[in-house]
């Protein structure tokens, strides 16, 4: 399990990795840890999956990925896992999740994100996906983003252990 020191480390890292030769030593100095201890804790956090990935998050619009489509499908529950796995094989599918349906008004349970440089290209890729995975019989909708109001990582605070459930 993660402890109070891990939480402090997590909170500090959210401000970004220091842009200096020994970034983990700098983080350690702030928390009174040795560089080695920081490295060990980070390795464990990565192994546990608490840190999914260490690296950069790009502003996709600034890289020219202006067409951001959320494609939602209404797939039979018994097939969603298999189809989700299949859909994820396509390199242009950036994210793929099963989510709960919201009644008749929103019956969709499989969500795929496709980021592309323009809408035409994204729609071509989607047509290819539907054809290749045999999804034509399933109802789907494509929701392009029009405007991004807020984009940042989630912020976590280092809560004292006793406050955790």
């Amino acid at each position, binding site marked *: 399990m993660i402890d109070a020191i891990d939480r402090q480390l997590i909170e500090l890292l959210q401000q*970004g990795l220091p842009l200096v030769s020994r970034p983990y030593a700098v983080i350690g100095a702030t928390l009174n840890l040795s560089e080695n201890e920081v490295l060990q804790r980070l390795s464990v956090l990565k192994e546990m999956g608490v840190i999914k990935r260490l690296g950069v998050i790009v502003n996709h619009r600034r890289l020219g990925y202006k067409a951001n489509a959320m494609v939602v499908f209404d797939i039979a529950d018994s097939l969603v896992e298999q189809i989700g796995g299949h859909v994820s094989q396509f390199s242009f599918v950036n994210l793929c999740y099963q989510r709960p349906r919201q009644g008749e008004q929103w019956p969709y349970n499989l969500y795929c994100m496709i980021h592309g440089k323009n809408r035409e290209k994204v729609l071509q890729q989607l047509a290819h996906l539907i054809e290749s995975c045999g999804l034509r019989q399933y109802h789907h909708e494509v929701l392009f983003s029009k405007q991004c109001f807020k984009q940042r*990582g989630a*912020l976590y605070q280092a809560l004292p252990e006793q406050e955790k*459930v």
Partner: protein
Amino acid sequence: MDEVDKQIINHLQGGFPVCDSPYQVVADQLGLTETGLISRIKALLESGVLSRFGPLYHAEQMGGALTLAAVKTPEAEFDQVAEIINAFPEVAHNYQRNHELNMWFVIATDVPERLTEVIQEIEQQTGLSVYNMPKINEYFVGLNLKA
């Protein structure tokens, strides 16, 4: 942004080493100097091409909670509702999408109970029903965009 910047972005989306001199390791792989790499990362962060450089956490593994939520906002009230929702520090992203369900946002909280509270508070403050769609299964997360 030149070819070297693109290489750096593509490389770092795959991850950053956990070792004593990580910039040196990456610089060697890319044929750059350590200081050259650091100054280019700094410039990419300052120009906003990179929105963050650091860890991507798994909310549930940390004992927290994460969900995708949406509301149907009347066009006339759109900006007002966006302002209310974005004011919550727990709201990580918010996108307008071309659908009747036109505002889509991610809520991330330190503890699961807070997620329920945030949804209730958004419903009270906006008068709109929040569609709550936490993930059931994750088939793929590999949001690497080629620069």
